[in-house]
């Protein structure tokens, strides 16, 4: 049954970018405030789920561009990669390392292995959920 989803489609157009924005925000503020990779990935997945509701599974696959399982794998690789700097520095594995890059104006861009690990978690959560959802859709 081809149903008429005009209102949901246009609403998804407006809401989905907002959700993606929110997910990136949650990912980046995860260091010392509530947020982090897990919940960011969850929100990103919800954005894609909304897209899947309104446009169907085929276009969602195209929108993701890569297979969700690859996303999951890349996320795990990121998690693994975040352990390397501490190993090179001779610390215990997963010890947090921080770099501060001065920015124009005031303030520092804080880079850390924690962020890399968080991005890994983000991608892994997104990949897992999209694997579930796309699997359910196609079954």
């Amino acid at each position: 049954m081809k149903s008429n989803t005009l209102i949901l489609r246009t609403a998804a157009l407006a809401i989905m970018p907002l959700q993606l924005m929110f997910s990136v925000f949650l990912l980046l503020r995860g260091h010392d405030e509530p947020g982090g990779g897990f919940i960011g990935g969850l929100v990103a997945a919800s954005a894609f789920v909304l897209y899947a509701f309104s446009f169907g599974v085929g276009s969602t696959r195209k929108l993701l561009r890569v297979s969700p399982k690859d996303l999951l794998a890349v996320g795990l690789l990121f998690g693994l990669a975040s352990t390397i700097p501490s190993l090179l520095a001779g610390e215990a594995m997963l010890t947090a390392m921080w770099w501060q890059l001065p920015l124009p104006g005031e303030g520092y861009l804080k880079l850390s292995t924690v962020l890399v690990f968080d991005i890994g978690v983000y991608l892994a959560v997104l990949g897992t959920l999209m694997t579930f959802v796309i699997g359910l859709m196609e079954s």
Partner: protein
Amino acid sequence: MIEIALKVTIALIALAVVLNVYRLIRGPDATDRVLALDTLYINAIALILLLDIQLDTRLYLESALLIAVMGFIGTVALAKYLKRGSVIE
């Protein structure tokens, strides 16, 4: 003054939640229950905002936005399920 207003508002919202739960239990149709759930999550957002003012912290604001996002997705999914018998075709 704000403190009294805050307490009164929390009481009002709590009463609203009780009424929503009444509709959630009573039914009679599945759509009524979904509507009650929808209203419940919006009231939950209100409670979180009030808690934020009460505790004078901004820690819980993101969770309020998060509930708004996830609750909307949930309502759409439930409505789609009721209509189609499956969530995604």
